[in-house]
């Protein structure tokens, strides 16, 4: 009968170390900046590797709690890192399946009495063996409405986070100040989360590198003039309200692509490979950010 259950394979410690080094190198390549985040991931990786080595010597302890809270301004890569985290934890052997279930308040909190618990439990069941990512987690709890069903979802979450650590990793994400207020109202939550990771804003150089990465993935490139123009663009855009870091960069690039397309479209028949892939300075400089008048606060620059 025992043959029905396959034995779990345990890789050697040296393999694990090499795998972790490779993983961290990959992370370094794919994510620009975010030094504190990478440091924390390296620490977690080391902890898990040491834990596994300890287990081989019969020093098994309870599994470490890996619930995390990602705070930071918009566009600093919280969701991207959460997506990667699921894969990382899977490769480190902590999470069994390594999938990510991304939810918001709507997926957890019900509409009427008795609706919330089954809804939350269903989401939790789907996330078991992987990572549950709750974006903008502070919406779960609305202190101004005492009959809000969010509290019920919070309680079920807390219970599972405490009792089924080996089945599920919960990652909360949101803006720093609002998360802090959320934790103030739910002290149990803050204490059950071992890792509070703050995502710093990107510097201009980092944003330029991000732009280069994004362009490469889209199959475009800047010429020298466009690069300089984009640097000037970033300088101005960063000073304006509602700057959303990498997200603003992506939006700016998308709009540059639009302008590039309408420029090339006029003479589409004679467009060669170079014309089709090169974004020039005028594509960037047409942005509204370069207009002198102030007062526009919208994101469409």
């Amino acid at each position, binding site marked *: 009968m025992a043959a029905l259950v396959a034995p779990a394979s345990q890789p050697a410690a040296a393999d694990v170390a090499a795998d972790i080094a490779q993983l961290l190198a990959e992370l370094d390549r794919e994510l620009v900046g975010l030094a504190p985040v990478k440091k924390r991931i390296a620490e977690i990786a080391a902890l898990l590797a040491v834990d596994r080595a300890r287990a081989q010597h019969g020093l098994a302890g309870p599994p470490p709690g890996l619930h995390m809270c990602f705070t930071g301004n918009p566009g600093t890569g919280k969701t991207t890192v959460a997506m990667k985290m699921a894969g990382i934890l899977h490769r480190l052997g902590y999470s*069994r*399946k390594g999938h990510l279930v991304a939810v918001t308040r709507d997926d957890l909190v019900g509409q009427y009495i008795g609706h919330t618990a089954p809804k939350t439990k269903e989401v939790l*069941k789907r996330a*078991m*063996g*992987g990572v549950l990512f709750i974006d903008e987690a502070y919406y779960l709890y609305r202190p101004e409405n005492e009959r809000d069903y969010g509290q019920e979802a919070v309680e079920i979450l807390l219970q599972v986070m405490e009792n*089924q650590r080996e089945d599920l990793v919960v990652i909360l994400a949101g803006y720093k100040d609002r998360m802090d207020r959320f934790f103030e109202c739910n002290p149990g939550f803050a204490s059950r989360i071992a890792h509070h990771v703050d995502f710093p804003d990107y510097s201009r150089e980092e944003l330029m590198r991000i732009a280069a990465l994004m362009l490469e993935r889209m199959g475009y490139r800047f010429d020298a003039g466009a690069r300089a123009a984009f640097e000037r663009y970033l300088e101005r855009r960063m000073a304006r309200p509602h700057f959303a870091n990498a997200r603003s960069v992506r939006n700016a690039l998308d709009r540059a692509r639009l302008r590039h397309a309408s420029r090339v479209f006029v003479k589409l028949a004679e467009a060669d490979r170079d014309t089709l892939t090169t974004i020039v300075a005028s594509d960037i400089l047409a942005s509204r950010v370069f207009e002198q008048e102030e007062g526009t606060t919208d994101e469409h620059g």
Partner: protein
Amino acid sequence: MRVTQGAFSFLPDLSDAQIRAQVEYCLKNGWAVSVEHTDDIHPRNTYWEMFGMPMFDLHDAAGVMQEIDACRKTFPNEYVRVNAFDSTRGWETVRLSFIVNRPPAEPGFRLRRTEAEGRVQRYSIEAYAADRPHGERYR
């Protein structure tokens, strides 16, 4: 008399680790797993009571194990089974079904003979436990 319905029922009861492995197999194939219970074990009783909704989009057996445990705790004296439903076009049916909980004592079935027209005799079976009303069987 040990009830033999569904897969693995001629084997000793599956351990939790074995049940988990079976559920993992079902999920790997993309089948929706559900938990059902009954205290009417007649072989023709195809549709048992559902314990919660069938579970779609699961990746890991932990959620199913949790449901199985909850069902066993709620109905310790009933039969509990796990079904795996394959929604692939052309199949659209239960692909695997096995019992994961039984009452402590299984009294078995009575063979009932009914005289019919002429010298014809009709046979039927019914569980001894079914003599008692629903909800009070296997106590």
